[in-house]
């Protein structure tokens, strides 16, 4: 780091040189205990406070948690959460760090904070056995958003089990004021069983080495910020997200569906980029993104390596409430038929269509239905109908599905918006209307009803046609 600074000063950038020199000499006044928060919350901004001696008390806990419904995992944590507690400092603070390894833990741990200027980022000085406490101090010199993580052998395994978090170093006077701040951190997980396989899943070293992740999630688990746990904001508010990526392996293409980042503090540093759609966050790196929410609705946070979002869990929600602003976003205004030939032809060009093969037996219906399912439904409801917890309801053993066939047909024909309850879980998302023929709807529903422990109903094209014509 010093070499880099020397280079900067050699370029004659006097201002940079001066401010950096200063930060190591900033005097500290009183002492205070650092406020630590679990995600998605962050401690109060530093504002105008002077540099202080900041005591950080962090406890390491190894404990079982839930990766997704029915899937348990033993997480190793800084402060009992994944990612670990958020630490908020300002330039010039002298941090006195107390790292406590709970006596119930099995393993030694340490902490490497990327905000530290010194060998190992503190790792050497903080190595601590279960039932013990290590103390070390450092002065934060460079403003920015930094990752911290455990660096005990095997390093990859400690990180893969959740031992990472963020430490923010604000400049003097603090970051510009915003209305809402949240803490979001991505991580990839490697389990012995495949994605969704139930029970307590041990860490899989081979998959980690192969970088073949079973889960890619925000804040340590699938659905950590969806449904009732979604982040919230009001129209007109400015949101700041402190986004980190613990890895251990994958780089995140962080994107918020339906928003453009007004400002990205690139890689958590001092460079500001404006009007950004997707920002890259390296493993062991971070970014600060800021945007004003202008219209109400649910905005989805994803890793835009998109299979991770819809198949591995890297999906969170920001729910914005307030007045619609049709000038900015109209919603769907009109729906009509599109004629490539122009307006003269008034009917759908059905005549040219090859007549669809009609299933002649239940077995065929199910086979055809499965094909449609894999083309149309699979992405959200998943291969075994298990859905994605917090985002897309399950079709497997679904009480909601089995209760009402007509309702199921209607949802495929017309789509579905709003809150529903499936197997005790509340879902609030959007399914668009599906462009399928009566025959296809009948087959796909028959397939679903005859799979995964459902009620084995058979749905006919006539039933679908009746619903399409008004439900008689």
């Amino acid at each position, binding site marked *: 780091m010093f070499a880099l600074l020397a280079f900067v000063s050699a370029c004659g950038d006097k201002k940079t040189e001066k401010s950096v020199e200063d930060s190591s000499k900033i005097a500290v006044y009183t002492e205070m205990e650092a406020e630590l928060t679990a995600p998605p919350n962050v401690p109060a901004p530093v504002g105008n406070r002077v540099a202080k001696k900041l005591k950080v008390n962090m406890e390491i806990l190894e404990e079982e948690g839930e990766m997704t419904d029915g899937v348990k995992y033993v997480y190793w944590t800084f402060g009992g959460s994944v990612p670990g507690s958020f630490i908020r400092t300002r330039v010039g603070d002298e941090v006195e760090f107390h790292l406590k390894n709970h006596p119930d833990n*099995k393993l030694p741990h340490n902490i490497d904070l990327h905000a530290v200027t010194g060998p190992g980022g503190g790792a050497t000085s903080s190595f*601590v056995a*279960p039932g013990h406490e290590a103390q070390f101090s450092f002065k934060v010199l460079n403003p920015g958003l930094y990752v911290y993580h455990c660096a005990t052998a*095997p390093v990859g395994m400690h990180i893969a089990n959740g031992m990472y978090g963020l430490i923010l170093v604000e400049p003097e006077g603090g970051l510009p004021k915003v209305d809402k701040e949240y803490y979001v951190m991505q991580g990839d997980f490697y389990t012995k069983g495949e994605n969704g396989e139930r029970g307590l899943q041990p860490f899989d070293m081979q998959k980690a080495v192969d970088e073949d992740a079973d889960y890619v999630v925000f804040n340590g688990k699938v659905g950590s910020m969806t449904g009732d746990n979604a982040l919230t904001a009001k129209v007109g508010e400015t949101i700041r997200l402190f986004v980190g990526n613990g890895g251990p392996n994958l780089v995140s293409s962080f994107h918020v569906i339906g928003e453009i980042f007004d400002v990205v503090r690139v890689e958590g540093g001092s460079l500001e980029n404006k009007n950004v759609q997707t920002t890259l966050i390296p493993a062991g790196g971070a970014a600060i993104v800021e945007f004003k929410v202008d219209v109400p609705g649910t905005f989805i946070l994803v890793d835009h390596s998109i299979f991770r979002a819809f198949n591995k869990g890297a999906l969170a929600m920001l729910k914005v409430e307030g007045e619609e602003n049709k000038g900015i976003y109209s919603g769907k205004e009109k729906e009509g038929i599109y004629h490539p030939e122009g307006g003269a032809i008034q009917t759908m060009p059905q005549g040219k269509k090859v007549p669809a093969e009609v299933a002649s037996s239940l077995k065929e219906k199910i086979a055809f239905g499965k094909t449609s399912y894999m083309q149309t439904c699979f992405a959200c409801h998943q291969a075994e109908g298990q859905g994605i917890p917090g985002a897309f309801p399950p079709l497997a053993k679904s009480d909601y599905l089995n209760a009402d066939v007509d309702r199921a047909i209607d949802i495929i024909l017309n789509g579905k918006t709003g809150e529903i309850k499936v197997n005790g879980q509340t879902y609030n998302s959007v399914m668009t209307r599906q462009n399928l023929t009566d025959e296809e709807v009948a087959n796909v529903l028959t397939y679903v009803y005859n799979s995964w422990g459902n009620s084995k109903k058979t749905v006919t094209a006539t039933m679908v046609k009746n619903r399409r014509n008004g439900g008689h």
Partner: protein
Amino acid sequence: MISKIYNILFFLCLGLLQTQAQNNAMKLVKGGSYIPLYGVDTVLVKVPSFFMDVYPVTNQDYVQFVKDNPKWKKSKVIQLFAEENYLRHWQNDEEIGVENLPVEPVVNISWFAANAYCECQGKRLPSIDEWEYVAMANEKMADARKLKSYNEFILAWYEKPKPKNNPIGSTFKNYWGIYDLHGLVWEWTSDFNSVLVSGESRKDVDTDTNLFCGSAAIGATDLMNYAAFMRYAIRGSLKANYVMKNLGFRCVKTADTIKNK
């Protein structure tokens, strides 16, 4: 240096004769050579034959020891030799309390205490090499380190925090007839801090070629090495007066000395 201080101050062992029961519960481990984690392919470490306790030392064994050697009672022990959590889980000096089983491995024991115990039995703590050598075995093979199932068993235990009360003998009996080397508690070794994992593991990989030579570090991807890494890490995090809730011990005896008797 530490052991010197120890010898001067504490090689006064009143319970020297109370050793018969333990002796009966030892098994011969036939010597051989093995490649430790930190070695290179050409460096085989020779391990001479030795006898090892079949089980870790239990609460009830240790109660007897403190009765015979009151200076190792938790109210009496000198902090230089055992930090304040020494025998913390026991109810008092001579009673383990209802929370603990008499036949559980005794834990919250410092290296000094473990060492004294073994010496009082006419035994000693195993070296890292002896411990690692005997712990390579599964039920059937003397060296099972290449088996996936063997490594998975070990790793599964390392990953699980908050151990419950587990009596000795509750894990498998290995090739040598010895129980509980994996899956119950960590165990002290005589030279636990001779291989220094500094805490900055990545630095170790880069610079200390004796510890993790280049090829071992780069190739250290298989489970076998990961399990061993974790044992070296825990040993490296300890000091001789430290105690841990998951750390117990057992004793060994060099084979020749027993033959001679």
